[in-house]
């Protein structure tokens, strides 16, 4: 009896060991399976090809996916842009994030953004800038670029255009070049910016002749002559033409912020408002460039409760819808109106959050719902 108990105990122990071994092997196999699955299957499927339904083909928005690391959030953002009825989307592709070392590229994130934008049926406008450390002197900011490095930037822009041929047909070269901040605190200079265009434009055209090159994207500013912070945008654009810029861009990018003025507030060189865009257009025409269209790549209104440049939320909705109407009905020279900004990857904890249409958690703000309603009205 005692012997039986001993044998039974030994057998049970063996069974437990076998069971443990089996469980361990099973667990290892499961882990390997998950690893293989993660390696070969995409986390987020692109989904079926979509098209944007809208009554206003000029409606656009600036997304902010630069630092959005989760692919499902990239997809959800662009889905919501489509669902809002906006066929146009501007997105920033930082040179420093992509060309990590000269000639060594990391396209993973850019590929995701382009693929999802294409699948949602959006026309993507790619803003290029942000200088890698290897292309600028030590202790400079990522916006600093010496003239001897313009060719490096041009080669990057051309490589970008070539990689995304048929997928990205619009690129913006640099951002707000009339501000010192946007040159790493070097003095803004229209001739220098024109030199950048003169370098990059032919390289892009050689790589992808059909790609539209946007220039300008000037910050609307009333900076007085000699200001260390920036140059008046109207003055800067004329200086660009004087330097021969007309031959080196296909579309003028415009930034059109309304601050606390309504969209029908008349244009005035002494005021920053939405119709300041018309003053920039006048400069284009005066310089014989009326055949060149424009696209507003940033703009709009802010509805922070107390920021002095903000309007009430109800005004923001009304002004935004009116602005989209102006773009469609009054400005034949404008191809699209892309407002700032659809959503941030995280809260900015400042008035900047009140430029958004959707919160970081994808909660649609009323302005999103109202624009969606506007673009889906059957009869207008």
């Amino acid at each position, binding site marked *: 009896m005692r012997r039986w108990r001993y044998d039974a105990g030994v057998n049970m122990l063996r069974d437990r060991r076998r069971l443990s071994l089996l469980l361990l092997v099973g667990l290892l196999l499961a882990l390997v399976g998950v690893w293989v699955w993660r390696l070969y299957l995409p986390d987020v499927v692109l989904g079926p090809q979509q098209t944007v339904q809208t009554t206003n083909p000029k409606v656009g928005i600036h997304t902010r996916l630069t630092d959005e690391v989760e692919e499902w959030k990239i997809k959800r953002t662009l889905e919501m842009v489509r669902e809002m009825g906006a066929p146009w989307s501007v997105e920033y592709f930082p040179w420093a994030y992509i060309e990590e070392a000269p000639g060594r590229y990391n396209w993973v994130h850019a590929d995701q953004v382009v693929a999802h934008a294409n699948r949602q049926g959006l026309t993507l406008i790619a803003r290029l800038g942000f200088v890698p450390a290897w292309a600028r002197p030590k202790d400079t900011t990522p916006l600093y670029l010496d003239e001897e490095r313009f060719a490096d930037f041009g080669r990057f822009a051309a490589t970008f255009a070539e990689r995304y041929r048929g997928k990205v047909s619009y690129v913006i070269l640099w951002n707000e070049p009339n501000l010192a901040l946007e040159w790493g605190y070097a003095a803004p200079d229209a001739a220098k910016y024109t030199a950048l265009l003169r370098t990059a434009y032919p390289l892009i055209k050689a790589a992808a002749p059909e790609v539209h090159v946007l220039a300008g994207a000037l910050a609307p500013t009333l900076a007085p002559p000699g200001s260390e912070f920036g140059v008046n945008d109207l003055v800067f654009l004329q200086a660009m033409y004087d330097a021969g810029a007309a031959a080196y861009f296909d579309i003028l990018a415009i930034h059109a912020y309304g601050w606390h003025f309504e969209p029908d507030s008349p244009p005035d060189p002494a005021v920053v408002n939405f119709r300041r865009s018309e003053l920039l257009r006048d400069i284009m025409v005066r310089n014989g460039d009326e055949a060149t269209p424009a696209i507003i790549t940033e703009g709009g209104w802010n*509805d922070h*409760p*107390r920021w002095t440049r903000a309007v009430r939320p109800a005004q923001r909705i009304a002004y935004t819808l009116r602005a989209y109407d102006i773009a469609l009905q009054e400005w034949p020279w404008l191809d699209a109106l892309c407002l700032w900004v659809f959503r941030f990857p995280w809260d900015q904890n*400042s008035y900047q959050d009140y430029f958004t249409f959707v919160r970081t958690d994808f909660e649609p703000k*009323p302005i999103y719902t109202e624009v969606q309603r506007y673009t889906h009205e059957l009869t207008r």
Partner: protein
Amino acid sequence: MASGAGIAWLLFADQSVSLLPFLRRDVTWQAVQQRGVWRVGLDPSFPPFELLDATGAPVGYDVALAQALAETWGVRAEIVAVGFDSLPDTLKAGRIDSIVSAYPYDERLTQDFLFSTPYFDAGLRIAVPVSSTIRTLSELTGQRVGVEWGSVGDMVGRRLQREGAEINLSPFETPDELIAALLEDRSLDAIFIDNVSLRQAQAAGQPLAAIDAPLESIPYVIVMPRRAAELQNRVETSLQLLKTRGDLANLENQWFGHQANKEGAQ
């Protein structure tokens, strides 16, 4: 190698766990004492917290708060006007000693800065007439709730409806219309309103009461350099002192009432 890392840990570890706090010097606090001046950065475009008066001088709740805090240390607050977006970099660069600028707590910045406890919450509140018996969000079922069209209150109201709350939302174009509908027309039972607008209305004598917890919280804090532990302690102590003495409540009444009166006069 290991001993070097250990020494570095002892010197630079978080103040709460450092074994050698006496080796850590708060150079910010020392500089404030030597100068007799506390350099405070703020963006004067945010009434009633900070704005410019007719002479171009910064005034407002935060300016008065900074002056009151500095007074408890026997120094003077020097206001430095800085754009909101540039405030953190300006602090990091040592051009100012602290930020007192209706600055919301941001957990992403805790590796770079120290924060005070909140001195004001600008979040979203439920407000009812003081005579109302409604005391909680759940009691709003079947009630008429007003929101400012397009505001955060509007967004939260729509979300609550989507989540099944049976509230009847009514949009109004301005906070004034919203409050009038609640108090004068009696066409509403409650409103969703940001706490600053609510405090301004209360300071102007409107019989409004906030109920339940904030629907959304936006706590304003004072921001200090990462290694300014002594300054942080001083700020905390003085904030408590001002609260206990009723000075914070007086500042709110002074500046929220001031702004409400100014807006009412326009």
